[in-house]
């Protein structure tokens, strides 16, 4: 029973922490670019404002446009229930594994893309087309990376993978692991819409993918969509952190272990934010037609991860 409460608690905490992650990355980028930057809590103020505003919906849009933000938000939040955040093994671990997580994310992308086409705006169509291209091309890398993780841990269930790694720490330094981390990092950039694949801060026609799909949203809908994309970023960070560097995660439900786990999670997320902020400041956005090249490199890295773990068996 207590583990269920911890589960729900950590999921709520993740939901509430997600906008701060986005705010931290923005603040770090601003500092690196010699600007003052908005405070880390800025996204919370934005969400608060958006929830109070009136939503304007296009006359061309149908019920799908109005339902899509809820579908995306719900599916993303549901994923936080099965991702290892602070406690392993999770009570919901047997209900969903890594493949379910990946395809639930695809569910969100599917509905966002449909909602981009609904108002009949060319920006939305463009965003949907590019967004689905990137999502489709990132799928093989994720699948092969899952193969690498699962063949090492013997199962695709997330709690299993994390527990197995805690039990044998040397396995984290295997080249297979590191290569899988590199390939999943690139996929994270693609799926969460960060540079060099997509620029989350732009509304220029040539440079937006995710922003184009949600261009017509306003008010509560926009708040839900923005929050959902922040939670998606958090989910990817947690997967990268806790499936590859799981030390600090609590294995028992006890107050000191959970506090340590929370602190470890915050530190790991912070480090990932710094890495992403530095990367985003350092590189320029890739042309859309150069993105498949990057994704094919990540696919080959994942394939190398699997083959090197085969040979070392």
């Amino acid at each position, binding site marked *: 029973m207590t583990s269920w409460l911890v589960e729900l608690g950590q999921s709520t905490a993740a939901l509430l922490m997600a906008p701060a992650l986005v705010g931290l990355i923005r603040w770090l980028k601003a500092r690196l670019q010699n600007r003052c930057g908005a405070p880390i809590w800025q996204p919370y103020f934005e969400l608060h404002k958006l929830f109070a505003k009136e939503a304007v919906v296009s006359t061309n849009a149908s019920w799908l446009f109005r339902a899509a933000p809820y579908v995306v938000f719900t599916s993303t939040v549901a994923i936080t229930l099965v991702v290892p955040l602070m406690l392993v093994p999770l009570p919901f671990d047997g209900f969903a594994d890594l493949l379910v997580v990946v395809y639930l994310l695809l569910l969100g992308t599917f509905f966002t893309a449909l909602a981009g086409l609904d108002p009949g705006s060319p920006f939305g169509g463009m965003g949907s087309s590019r967004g689905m291209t990137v999502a489709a091309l990132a799928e093989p890398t994720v699948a092969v990376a899952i193969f690498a993780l699962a063949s090492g841990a013997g199962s695709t269930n997330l709690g299993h993978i994390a527990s197995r790694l805690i039990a044998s720490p040397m396995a984290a330094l295997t080249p297979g692991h590191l290569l899988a981390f*590199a390939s999943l990092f690139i996929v994270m950039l693609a799926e969460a819409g960060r540079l060099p694949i997509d620029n989350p801060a732009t509304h220029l026609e040539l440079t937006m993918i995710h922003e184009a799909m949600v261009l017509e949203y306003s008010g509560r809908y926009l708040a839900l969509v923005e929050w959902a994309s922040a939670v998606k970023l958090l989910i990817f960070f947690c997967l990268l952190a806790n499936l590859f560097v799981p030390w600090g995660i609590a294995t028992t439900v006890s107050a000191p272990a959970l506090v340590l786990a929370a602190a470890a999670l915050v530190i790991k997320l912070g480090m990932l934010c710094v890495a992403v902020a530095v990367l985003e400041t350092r590189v320029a956005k890739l042309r859309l037609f150069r993105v*498949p090249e990057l994704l094919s490199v990540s696919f080959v*890295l994942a394939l190398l991860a699997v083959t090197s773990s085969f040979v070392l068996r």
Partner: protein
Amino acid sequence: MMAGGLFSQLSVLGSSLALVFGLFVLWRRSLGAYVSAFAWQSGVVAGVAAMVAHFSGDHALYLVAALVFGIKAIAIPRLLTVMGRRFGGDRESHPYVNTEASVLSAAVLVLVAYSVTRPVVALSQLPTRGAIPLAMGLTFVSLFVVISRKKALTQIIGFLMLENSIALLAVLCTYGIPLIVEIGVFLDALMGFLVMQVFVYRIHETFESLDVEQLRHLKH
């Protein structure tokens, strides 16, 4: 056994990094990226040699590592940058095989390397045997770079990476070759490099570009 485990992990890690830098050359298009990839790769090969020296106790390999680092990670990249600046730093914008296909072919070549070296890995008792397929894969990838790219400078870099991969293979398979042989191989590569430098200068003078395909126009 822990040290043995760490040794093999580190050797596989080093070889994977060298291979990844090789893939980098297939992905990027500018000469500057190629030169830095080559420099880092030489650094990694030097690191692997130093590590093998540490774990196997063969101190001559430290000298080899220093040589590799000095010549291939510092001197030659500097020379290549100078050459690039002199000849206009052409970008590899239309290679014979496009980028995604090159990268995927590299993956296939690595799989081929795995199956080709399977008997060697099975028979070998060395802790570094897990890294041998990766070094073999780097050899194939370097050859692929030489074949599929159009610009002369890229081909030179491919040749130098090939030499890197052979050095890596030597270090992994036999814990290094006798110092005399190693120095001989280095001098050979250096001579080849200097000769190629003369050729690049000539090609640029005649055709105003470094596209190796232009050499076709020499025949009548």
